[in-house]
């Protein structure tokens, strides 16, 4: 290589270039030569220094034991999976308690959240608390993980061979094969049962619902000649009259009804009228607590009342009246309004009594509601159990007529009375098979237990209402060696292939419309059809729902249905003494989710009790008998008894005690075992062939023991603060003055908004971008508590257990406060017998002038420039000053280590259950404060998505968890700085106010005054 030089000096330098020091790139002032040249010069001292340091460092670094965590990357990335980005799959959730079309959020291959499917015309994107919590049941380690024969592990091959053989023998011997199942709404499964019957002609399919709707089905058979439950359209009703039907909480399809009901109560769309809801009920139900007029009736009064109503309407519409039984409750107003709203009213009853249901049908028919608010042509298929058939099935088992019984997804030993006797009968069967997710109370007594896959691992379809279909698809591979029930039936029936193919075939043949194919010789007809089917199938699968038109004439009402059954209707026996009602609760339903800690810790919407059931009694009865809250009493009938603590329930009928179903499960898993309570199903008895849940004559005696209940709210009255905290008005007042009930807000809005001692708080210059806000409409909120669980699932909120709830350390970021009020709100007054109820969902209000922020000594809870009150968990040292100074008390403290490594084995300490955690939300350590973040992870995700797509955020694009879960759309989230956002309209609504706004906290959450459709402000007990 040539060397160039400019001067002689340079030539010398070039000659010595090998020895030249490299030029320095950066300033070298103050650095030593060694440092500049980056040469390591070390001597003995440096060596010793380094040795000493590294030893000390190694000791220091290794002295604290750090748990070893492994992150295993995908060796080959599966198609369609981007780590860190969630995928959503439309599916269907159907259990004995619930139905919804859902969207499952799958993150890195794990289903972590269930949301409602907005495309569904039935559930309309809503969910309830149980649906929100259902995702945890997938990871329930108490699930049976392999097939079992006589208590021992076995293989599917042996099971199938043996069962098939025995079934064939039974069928050959002409003995009955009974498939006892909870209601099946899957058309493919029903078809499969037909195929099964072809191979085993002696097969009988019997549906058993834990809570029976048989009387409605039978009554409709009498009234319309069609054994079905009609579909209800609460959204079309101006007057709703409910008799012991908790249609917003537990009755039939509460999510659907909540959505429809809320539409009639919505005053934000410019409507100035709302529905009027009368409820006649024995217990204080979620539905009754939302009613405009609620009347307490004895269980026995229901029939008398309905006869009275029937006669009044019959007289007015020129129909024949029937013999009346004496009834002192006035119905003039109800009758007047029902008659004024013919075809726009709805009368429902939840009592399993054919006479009552016949009367209800008669009333609805006279009011012309069929075809309007009721549709018998498009029936609801969610409950198909017939009590007579169930009874017959058990008689057959007892008499030995049934050679083989397959229990599919049903648990009669637990959910039916005389469980012990039933267990004995099951034990004696020649062939008993249970297809169940656990070795439950029934499966314990069967020869074979076949673990059913979770619905999130299975293919399925559903037809909840005639003509409305919904598809279910697996979102995760099977966790254990389970098999979905249908595949078993296919194996036994000798049908090859998978159930997926079976469904597809069924849909191809029966549901998806077959397109006309042009008669072209060059076209392969079959292929074209399949191709067309494929696109239709893919769309149905993506949407999750599919609707077809139901044709044909609506069945006509049989005018003699009342007179034919007149003896049944007018037969009345006067009840004596105390009676018991057992009922489903919003959280626990019929006990299906007993091992689900989220639901166990969900406070009951009315009583706010967690982890237990109890004997609810009215204040009057408690006073008479001298019972106090938490005194243990013994409730006894001829053949069943339980001991449970007393809970004093205002608004309950005073000769009735009530116990929730769904507790006292013994074989549901470790969490269910920890729970208190007792099974109330043993009290159910049959009357006139129908399972009775109410009016059960009981003796109740005090035991002298006490038992502490874990309640999340123990103070029920407002202390005269109603007009400040929980604002309400009547429709009439509101129509006159839109500010009615919310007058205080006018004062604060005009007078205080810009009065600032310091330039703090909401400052338009500060919030130049987004400013997030939440609007909650009391008119739509039913208090169902779906939001509580949705929030808990989304944000990895800890479960603390019964003991800590007793000490009021529950971690729920969102709570629903429930207040009772009577006409006069007196200090320390016990709420009277029939109070009004007010629900107030409370989460962090994200105050723009937050009291919590300025008291934190370490600035761990600062305000973001998007108006959020944020929490830096890593910075928090846990002084709890923020909690003390929060006027809403929404902040939660990790009193113990509730998460991994702590002593709390509900979810976080279980390797499998932990998979349900949301990876976008950090799990909080012991000693830090946490609270609602307004789902900041969702906000961030939404913002990023808009940014990558190069567009502005759209209103409604980001949904917070509580908003998304709410079946009645009571919660709206949005950007208060976005032009035209829904939330701006709600913020400006005359009904809106900030909770405790007089403190000048400038909350970003507004509440909208509750409007009750009452003639007068105060509650009246007998007039209605």
């Amino acid at each position, binding site marked *: 290589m040539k060397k160039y030089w400019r001067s002689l000096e340079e030539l010398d330098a070039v000659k010595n270039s090998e020895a030249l020091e490299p030029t320095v790139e950066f300033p070298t002032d103050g650095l030593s030569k060694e440092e500049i040249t980056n040469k390591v010069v070390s001597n003995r001292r440096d060596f010793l220094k380094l040795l000493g340091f590294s030893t000390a460092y190694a000791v220091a670094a290794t002295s604290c034991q750090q748990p070893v965590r492994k992150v295993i990357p995908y060796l080959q990335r599966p198609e369609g999976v981007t780590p860190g980005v969630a995928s959503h799959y439309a599916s269907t959730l159907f259990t004995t308690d619930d139905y919804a079309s859902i969207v499952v959020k799958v993150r890195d291959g794990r289903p972590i959240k269930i949301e409602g499917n907005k495309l569904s015309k039935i559930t309309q994107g809503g969910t309830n608390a149980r649906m929100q919590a259902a995702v945890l049941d997938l990871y329930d380690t108490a699930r049976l993980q392999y097939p079992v024969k006589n208590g021992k592990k076995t293989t599917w091959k042996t099971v199938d061979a043996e069962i098939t053989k025995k079934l064939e023998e039974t069928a050959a011997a002409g003995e009955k094969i009974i498939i006892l199942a909870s209601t099946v709404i899957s058309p493919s499964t029903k078809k499969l049962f037909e195929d099964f019957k072809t191979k085993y002609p002696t097969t009988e399919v019997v549906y058993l619902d834990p809570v029976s709707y048989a009387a409605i089905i039978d009554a409709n058979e009498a009234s319309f000649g069609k054994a079905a439950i009609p579909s209800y359209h609460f959204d079309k009703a101006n007057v709703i009259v409910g008799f012991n039907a908790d249609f917003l909480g537990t009755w039939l399809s509460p999510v659907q009804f909540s959505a429809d009901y809320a539409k009639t109560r919505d005053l934000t769309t410019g409507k100035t009228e709302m529905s009027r809801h009368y409820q006649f009920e024995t217990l204080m139900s979620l539905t009754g607590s939302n009613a405009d007029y609620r009347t307490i009736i004895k269980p026995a009064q229901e029939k008398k009342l309905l006869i009275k109503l029937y006669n009044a309407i019959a007289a007015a519409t020129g129909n024949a009246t029937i013999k009346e039984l004496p009834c002192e409750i006035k119905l003039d107003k109800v009758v007047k309004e029902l008659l004024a709203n013919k075809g726009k009213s709805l009368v429902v009853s939840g009592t399993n009594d054919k006479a009552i249901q016949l009367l209800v049908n008669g009333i609805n028919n006279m009011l012309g509601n069929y075809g309007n608010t009721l549709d018998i042509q498009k029936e609801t298929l969610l409950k198909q159990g017939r009590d007579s058939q169930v009874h017959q099935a058990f008689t057959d088992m007892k008499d030995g007529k049934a050679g083989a019984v397959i229990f599919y997804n049903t648990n009669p030993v637990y959910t039916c009375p005389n469980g012990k006797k039933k267990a004995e009968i099951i034990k004696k069967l020649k062939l008993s098979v249970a297809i169940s997710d656990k070795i439950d109370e029934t499966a314990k007594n069967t020869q074979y237990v076949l673990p059913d896959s979770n619905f999130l691992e299975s293919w399925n379809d559903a037809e909840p209402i005639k003509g409305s279909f919904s598809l279910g698809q697996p979102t995760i591979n099977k966790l254990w060696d389970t098999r979905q029930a249908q595949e078993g039936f296919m194996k036994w029936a000798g049908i090859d292939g998978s159930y997926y193919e079976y469904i597809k075939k069924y849909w191809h043949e029966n549901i998806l419309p077959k397109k006309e194919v042009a008669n072209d010789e060059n076209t392969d007809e079959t292929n074209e059809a399949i191709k067309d089917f494929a696109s239709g199938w893919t769309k149905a699968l993506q949407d999750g729902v599919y609707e077809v038109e139901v044709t044909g004439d609506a069945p006509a009402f049989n005018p003699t249905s009342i007179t034919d059954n007149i003896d049944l209707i007018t037969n009345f026996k006067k009840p004596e003494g105390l009676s018991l009602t057992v009922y489903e609760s919003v959280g626990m339903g019929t006990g299906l989710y007993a091992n689900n800690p989220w639901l166990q810790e969900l406070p009951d919407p009315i009583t706010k009790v967690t982890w237990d059931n109890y004997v609810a009694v009215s204040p009057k009865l408690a006073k008479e008998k001298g019972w106090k809250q938490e005194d243990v009493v013994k409730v006894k009938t001829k053949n069943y008894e339980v001991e449970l603590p007393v809970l004093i329930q205002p608004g309950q009928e005073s000769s009735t005690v009530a116990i929730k179903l769904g507790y006292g499960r013994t074989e549901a898993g470790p969490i269910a075992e920890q729970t208190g309570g007792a099974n109330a199903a043993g009290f159910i008895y049959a009357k006139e062939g129908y399972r009775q849940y109410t009016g059960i004559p009981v003796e109740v005696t005090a035991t002298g023991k006490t038992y502490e209940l874990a309640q999340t709210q123990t*103070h029920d009255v407002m202390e005269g603060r109603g007009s400040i905290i929980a604002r309400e008005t009547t429709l009439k007042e509101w129509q006159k003055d839109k500010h009615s009930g919310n007058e205080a807000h006018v004062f604060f809005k005009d007078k205080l908004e810009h009065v600032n001692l310091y330039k703090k708080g909401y400052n338009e210059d500060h919030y130049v971008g987004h400013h997030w806000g939440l609007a909650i409409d009391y008119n739509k909120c039913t208090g169902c508590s779906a939001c509580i669980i949705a929030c808990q699932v989304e944000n990895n909120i800890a479960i603390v257990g019964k003991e*800590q709830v007793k000490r009021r350390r*529950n971690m729920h970021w969102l709570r629903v406060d429930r207040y009772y009020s009577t006409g006069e709100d007196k200090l320390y007054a016990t709420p009277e017998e029939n109070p009004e109820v007010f629900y107030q969902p409370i989460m962090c209000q994200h105050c723009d002038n937050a009291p919590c922020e300025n*008291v934190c*000594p370490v600035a761990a809870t600062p305000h973001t420039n998007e108006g959020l009150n944020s929490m830096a968990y890593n910075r928090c040292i846990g*002084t*709890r000053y923020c909690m003390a100074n929060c006027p809403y*008390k929404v902040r939660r403290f990790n009193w113990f280590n509730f998460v991994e490594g702590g002593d709390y084995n509900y979810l976080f300490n279980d390797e499998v259950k932990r998979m349900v955690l949301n990876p976008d939300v950090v799990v909080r350590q*012991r000693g830090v404060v946490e609270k609602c973040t307004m789902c900041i992870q969702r906000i961030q995700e939404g913002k990023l998505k808009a940014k990558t797509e190069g567009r502005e955020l759209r209103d409604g694009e980001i949904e917070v968890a509580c908003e998304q879960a709410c079946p009645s759309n009571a919660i709206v989230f949005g950007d208060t700085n976005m032009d035209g956002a829904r939330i701006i309209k709600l913020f400006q609504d005359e009904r809106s106010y900030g909770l405790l706004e007089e403190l000048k906290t400038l909350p970003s959450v507004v509440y909208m005054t509750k409007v009750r459709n009452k003639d007068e402000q105060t509650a009246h007990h007998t007039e209605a």
Partner: protein
Amino acid sequence: MYKKEVRGELILGNKTYGDITNDILRSQETKAPLWWWIAFGIFFVLMSIGLGYYVPLTIAKGIGMWGNNNQVVWGWAIINFVWWIGIGHAGTAFSIFLLVFRQKWRTSINRAAEAMTVFAVLAAGLFPAIHVGRPWDEFFIFPYGPNSRGLWVNFNSPLLWDVFAITTYLTTSAIFWYIGMLPDFATVAERSKGLKKKIFRSLSLGWVGKMSSWRKFEDTLVILGGLAMPLVIAVHSIVSTDFSAGVLPGWHETIFPPFFVVGAIFSGFSMVVTLMVVIRLMFKLEDYVTDDHFDAIARIITFVSLIMGSAYLIELFIAWYSGNTFEQYVFDENYLKGHYAAPYWWMLIFNAFLPQLFWFKKVRRNLLLIFLITIGVNIGMWLERYNIVVPPMAEDFLPAGWFKYAPTIVDKWVYLGTIGLFGVGVLLFIRFIPMMAMNELKQQAKRHTELKPSAGEYIAYKKIIEDE
């Protein structure tokens, strides 16, 4: 100047300097009496269990070991903290206010009062340290640097100022206490042998009693006293802002700073009296802590009690007058007749009514009654802190959340542990440190007994003066 005719004699019995030294140092130069060992044993056990077991247990398991809950997030820890800080006011307030106001009768009491301050503040300081959720991250509360992540403390938070105020107060009190003891340490060193002599010699910083040293000594004390006086007011004012900066009804009050300071002085003075009664009886120091002393303190307590009573009345009145529902509920409902009426009324009795008995001279001069009433004041002041901390949180704005508060065994033991710490500290103080300021007592003795110096002494003084 001190007027004997008006105030009476401060030291009875016509003591000479030697007598004073002998009397005061007797407690440490003789063997410890049995009662001392018993008391020490009890307090030591309390301290060991409370601070040795239950405090580590809290740190290991979490604040959940205490009775606090989502509604009442602060409990006994904060009550005890404020209570101890209040008691900690005794020394400095007593010593410094009376020093600055030249109340010479303080001399026989101030040393013990200052010692009490130090131990009480130590006990108080424990609570904020252990009541946080993550004590291992407590250093976040100091504005330390270098700070590469831009994390800084929140100067708006009263809790931060608490940290500053308490550490400053503890340091100043300790220095003030220590400097005041220098001449006495020298005296002790003079009278002892061996290791003890060496220790006290070094503790006295080589004090030889030069006139210049005396002058600097007295100047230092006055200057330190002057500096510490605003601190006394500041520290409890800042503690009070922990509450008054909050929004809760019952906390959000402008009256709190003076109210807290006066309350602190009240409890501090009472604690001093309680302690002095014990010391006087046990060490037979009637000549130094005379009935006149108690009389004087009792008068102050009576006056402070009146201030407290008026403050309670003002709170009640303002709550009613404000028209604020929440405020009215806390004061006029909850305190007077609600769930928290019992602690409130007991507080009124102990703090506002019982000390009024001191209007009677007979009560002021009855040692037993004085003892009982001052104990009562400290119970009353504990209840006052309970009433400030618990009821406003337990029953605040939204009634749905209202919940009761009940301490757990851990809460109680931690409190007993701090009482043990205090007791052990005071007992050790009695045993190893001159429990009265001998040098100051001697000034008083000289002043009112009109001692005539002997010829030798005269010559010695003269020589010292000439040396200067």
